[in-house]
């Protein structure tokens, strides 16, 4: 019994932590569809229409008001994924397979943004490129700064975990040129890592607030900044609906990551994941 007590304690504490994590999310998701005027606490109780207990009208309101920002965030996220693959994967390959003097330093330097506060990087970026403030691609650059470390880290980790050099040499003795080897041997064997990296990049870009908020002009904001606007100016129901929409964007990605990563997420990748500074 004395040996079992700590185990039971750990289960109880884990349960409590799960409640701590889920309760606010449940309240918000419920709040987005329930007509809280029935509770008499709604600030929207004088809005006509929607008499039932469940209403989806706030989603319509959010989509109509902030739909443009949702599209903008999606565009940024997709572009981040594409650029991270195009720039990050070849670089990771070169850094691992063909190290040169200073390649270790480059690898470390790429990771630096993860341990720097978002506000520091945002102000640095604004100061340096004040002329372009408000341009959408400057925001994209801010996102890249945060997302590329993950792509580089995940792919270089995969490259180190199996012998790509051996496979390449085999292809080479069969007469494959460099481009053939890279596209037909290296890239296919990195499929899984690139997929995991892309999902990470998408999730981070979708949720990024600091850099986007500071780099953008108020009229041209990303969806997390729209969330901030609803928290500040709109009612509980509208904010909840907006937050629920945000969750709908990121939850499938997280679940897929958990599925693909499986053990990896708890192991090596977990160690990297925890360095996500992302929006915090």
């Amino acid at each position, binding site marked *: 019994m004395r040996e079992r007590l700590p185990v039971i304690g750990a289960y109880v504490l884990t349960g409590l932590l799960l409640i701590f994590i889920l309760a606010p999310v449940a309240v918000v998701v419920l709040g987005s569809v329930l007509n809280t005027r029935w509770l008499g606490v709604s600030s929207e109780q004088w809005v006509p229409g929607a008499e039932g207990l469940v209403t989806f009208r706030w989603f319509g309101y959010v989509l109509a008001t902030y739909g443009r920002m949702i599209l903008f965030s999606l565009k940024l996220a997709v572009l981040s994924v594409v650029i991270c693959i195009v*720039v990050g994967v070849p670089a990771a390959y070169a850094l691992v397979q063909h190290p040169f003097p200073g390649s270790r330093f480059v690898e470390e330097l790429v990771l630096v943004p993860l341990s720097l506060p978002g506000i520091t990087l945002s102000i640095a970026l604004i100061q340096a490129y004040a002329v372009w403030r408000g341009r959408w691609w400057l925001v994209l650059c801010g996102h890249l700064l945060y997302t590329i470390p993950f792509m580089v880290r995940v792919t270089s980790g995969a490259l180190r975990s199996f012998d790509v050099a051996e496979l390449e040499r085999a292809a080479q003795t069969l007469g494959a040129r460099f481009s053939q080897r890279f596209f037909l041997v290296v890239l296919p064997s990195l499929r899984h890592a690139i997929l995991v990296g892309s999902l990470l990049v998408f999730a981070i870009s979708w949720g990024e607030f600091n850099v986007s908020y500071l780099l953008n002009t108020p009229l041209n904001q990303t969806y997390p900044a729209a969330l901030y606007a609803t928290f500040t100016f709109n009612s509980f129901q509208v904010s909840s609906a907006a937050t629920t929409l945000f969750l709908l964007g990121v939850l499938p990605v997280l679940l897929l990551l958990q599925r693909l990563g499986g053990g990896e997420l708890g192991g090596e990748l977990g160690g990297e994941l925890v360095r996500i500074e992302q929006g915090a």
Partner: protein
Amino acid sequence: MAEAGRRIERGAEISIARGAEMAMERGAGFRRTAAWLVLPLVVLVFALLVYPLALLSVQSLRPGAGILDARPGSGALSLSNYRLIVSDPDYRTALLHSVVLSLGVALVATLLCLPSAWLFARREFRGKRLARALFTLPMSFSGIIVGFLTIIMLGRIGVVPQLLEKLTGHDGLSGVAYRFGGLLAAYVYFEVPRATLTLESALRKFDFRLDAAARTLGAGPWQRLRFVLVPLFLPALLSTFAVTFSVSLGSFGVALILSKRFSLLPLEIFQLYTGLLNGPLAAAMALVLGATALAVNTTMRLAFEGRVSRHA
């Protein structure tokens, strides 16, 4: 016979030629290809990280020129902004608040997540995968969402105070979201995934046979904890502490939503920059914040790696 010999000879010739070709490819030409592959990344990192940070450092040395500051900005570089951070009571308080809050968050998150991390690493139970997935959920939330959730739960008419009022007739915890306790809860909320994953990956590698050995040698639970478990696991605890500390220190979104009375450094920087337009002072503060976070993180990581290699 002669035919076969010639064939072997030819084969050897071909493989020698192939080897020379490969050697050549591994040489200068190949290096150039590899360099081309890294170049875009290097350009990106320099343009977006190194250059802006260097510029920020220079900027932080210029005298402040905010709208509240009537002094004409002279061109001379000085450390006056850094002196101001330490001497101005408001900024000093914000810095102190940030450090104290982050220390508290790091301590609470590390200790709170240890049992769950142990369960995930060492035990099998039904629904483990789902539980782990749910534990990582807050990681995808921006700070502002966590701030919003905290207000919903612990704000002036939050869910918890309302429930408490129904149950006890007294709305305890009302408005705690805006005070130290609420900030602590909010920060711990988004540190749970980080702390759990770091501790879990450390516990997976942990050799529990050492503990078993101590037990067979007759060590009691307290002795095992004091002389075996804590010393061996200390590096992992410290690195978790460091990661959660430095992330909390730089966190901006939560503070933006919640920090009304309890001033925090990231928010002060934001206000200085956008409200008072004092770029140089904001730059100095941003660098102090960034340097602190980076230093804590790097020191702990290096110390951790040192410990690991010594034990390995």
